[in-house]
Structure formats: C-alpha cells, structure tokens
C-alpha cells in the first residue's frame, strides 16, 4: 500500500471513528482544559495515525485499534486536565488553595464549607458501615455508573447489582438522615 492510498484508507477509517471520539471527549472534557474539544479530537487522531502509519502490512487487528483509540482518549483527557491554571485551582475541591479561593471569592461561606466537610465525613463513615458488596456497588453508583455498568464491573448479574445498589443507597440515606436529624 503506497502512502497516498494509506492516507486515504486512514481518512475513511477516521471519518467513521471521529464522531464517537468526539462524543467521548465531550462527555467529560475537563472544564479546566486549555484546549477545546476539536483540538482534543485532533490529538487523538494524530495518535491513531501514528499507529496506523506504522502498520506496514495491515497486520494490526481492529480490536487493537479499538484499544489504541480508547487509550488515546484517556491520555488526551488526562494530559489536558488542569492546563487552565485558574480553573485548575477552583476544580480542586479538597485542596486548601481551592477552599480559600472559594471562601475569599464569596462563592462559599466558611460555615457552608464547614458543613460540607462534616457531611462529607459522615458520608465516608456511613459507606464504611455498609457490607463490602453493597459498599462497592454504592460507590460506583455515586461515581455515576449505571446499574448495568456496575454489573459489568463487578461481574455479577444485573439483578444482583440492582439489589446491592438500591439497598445500599437506602441504607446510606437512612444513616445520613439519622446522623443529621439527631445532630
């Protein structure tokens, strides 16, 4: 395959991949990234092209390219997280710098910050009291995973993942309610 036909075949492949790469980048594009979505997609494209151009005899399988694309997306998101210096500090919720900045800028009062920390500690303690299986499912759910995704990550049946998650969430709410209604 000569260079021109290789470039053409890559362009054809990239036309099919690009919308999905864009969707992935858009889903959680870091708010503190200095580059825009198009630039991030372009970076992924360059990385995939590097691999594609080194594939002399078209010996790489589609599953390999799938992994290359995924890996490039993650690397790209990570590399540009925090590249916007000011937003980077605001994003860092637990950092002392971000905390001071929020209080100084008036976006959160010291009392509100104290209350947030108290609730956060109570949540951590409540999660530790759950049975290990439930705690794992609940943590993943709170991180934004859906029940089928939790089932896939924990390698269990969706029904079991559903039960673990919802019973765990219910127990968690009860514990938080007891903690803050009493005190």
């Amino acid at each position: 395959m000569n260079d021109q036909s290789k470039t053409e075949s890559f362009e054809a492949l990239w036309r099919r991949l690009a919308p999905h790469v864009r969707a992935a980048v858009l889903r959680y594009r870091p708010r503190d990234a200095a580059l825009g979505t198009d630039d991030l997609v372009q970076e992924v494209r360059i990385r995939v092209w590097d691999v594609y151009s080194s594939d002399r005899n078209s010996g790489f399988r589609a599953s390999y390219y799938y992994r290359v694309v995924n890996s490039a997306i993650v690397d790209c998101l990570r590399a540009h997280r925090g590249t916007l210096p000011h937003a980077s500090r605001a994003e860092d919720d637990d950092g002392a710098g971000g905390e001071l900045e929020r209080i100084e800028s008036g976006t959160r009062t010291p009392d509100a910050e104290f209350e947030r920390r108290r609730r956060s500690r109570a949540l951590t303690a409540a999660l530790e009291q759950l049975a290990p299986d439930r705690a794992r499912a609940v943590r993943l759910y709170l991180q934004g995973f859906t029940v089928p995704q939790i089932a896939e990550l924990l390698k269990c049946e969706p029904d079991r993942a559903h039960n673990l998650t919802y019973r765990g969430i219910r127990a968690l709410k009860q514990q938080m309610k007891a903690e803050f209604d009493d005190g």
Partner: protein
Amino acid sequence: MDNETKHLAGLFRSTTRKPRGCPDSDQLARLADGSAWPWQRRRVAAHLSECSRCAEDYQSLLTARDGLREALDLPAHGGRVGWLGAPAAAGMTALAVVAIVSTIAVQTSPEPSSMTAGNATGSSSDRIFASNFGGDTTSASESASGAEDVLFSSDFDARRGS
C-alpha cells in the same frame, strides 16, 4: 436518581477527586474492551469506585464504546467471547471431547477394573496394577487378597467398607 442521591453523589465525587495510584490508559482501555484479566478488572473497578477522575475517564470510553466497535466492525460488547475466551473455549471443548472418548473407551474395554501384564498367559500372578474405582468389588478384593505380586491395589469401596 433523586435529589438526595444526587446530593450524596456530588459530595462523594468531590471527596474522591484526589488521583492516587491511577491505572494507566491502557488498563482502562482493556477494561472497556473486556480483555482485562479478572484480577485487573477487580483492581481497576475498585479504583474507579474511589477516584472520580478515573471514573469520568472510563465513562467517556463507555459513551463511545458501541459506536467505536461498530465503526471498527467489531461485534457489540458483551456478546462476544473475547480474545482470550475463544482459545479457552476451544481448549475446553477439546478437553471435553477427549474426556468423552476416553470414557467410552474404558466402558468398551473387556476388563475395565484391572490392568494386567499377564493377560497373554491368562495368569493373575504378575499383575502390576489393579484398581476398582467403585466398580466390581468382588474381583478387586479377590485380586488384592489373593495375588502376592500385585504392586498397587486400589479399592475405594472396600476401604470404605472396612
């Protein structure tokens, strides 16, 4: 997700926004395409529950998973055996076939309960191995008690009885 759960989720994510010991991009990619080893999957899944940044990265991959697989003419996730699963399945099938064939061979053998070296002469005196795995107890106990030259004898039923 109701408001209370959303609030808890926001609180939880803000407390887990401290990247530490994060898996590299290749490990997340392997998890997304289902080719991670079980121990890797458990470890990465545990990390995703504790690190909101990696959880976001992984969710980005899940967003594009079906579309990318389709674009690359790969079968949809979940319905495939996987790169490691295919040879493993083939191996298991081969083992099953061997097991069935050997079982049939043993069942059709003229003397399944014993393997003798003296079959040609019809004598049981130079028997080197006699075994009865729950089969013909009479012949096995006979051979164990009567033949001095038996080097190894096994009769689980007889032992269980004594």
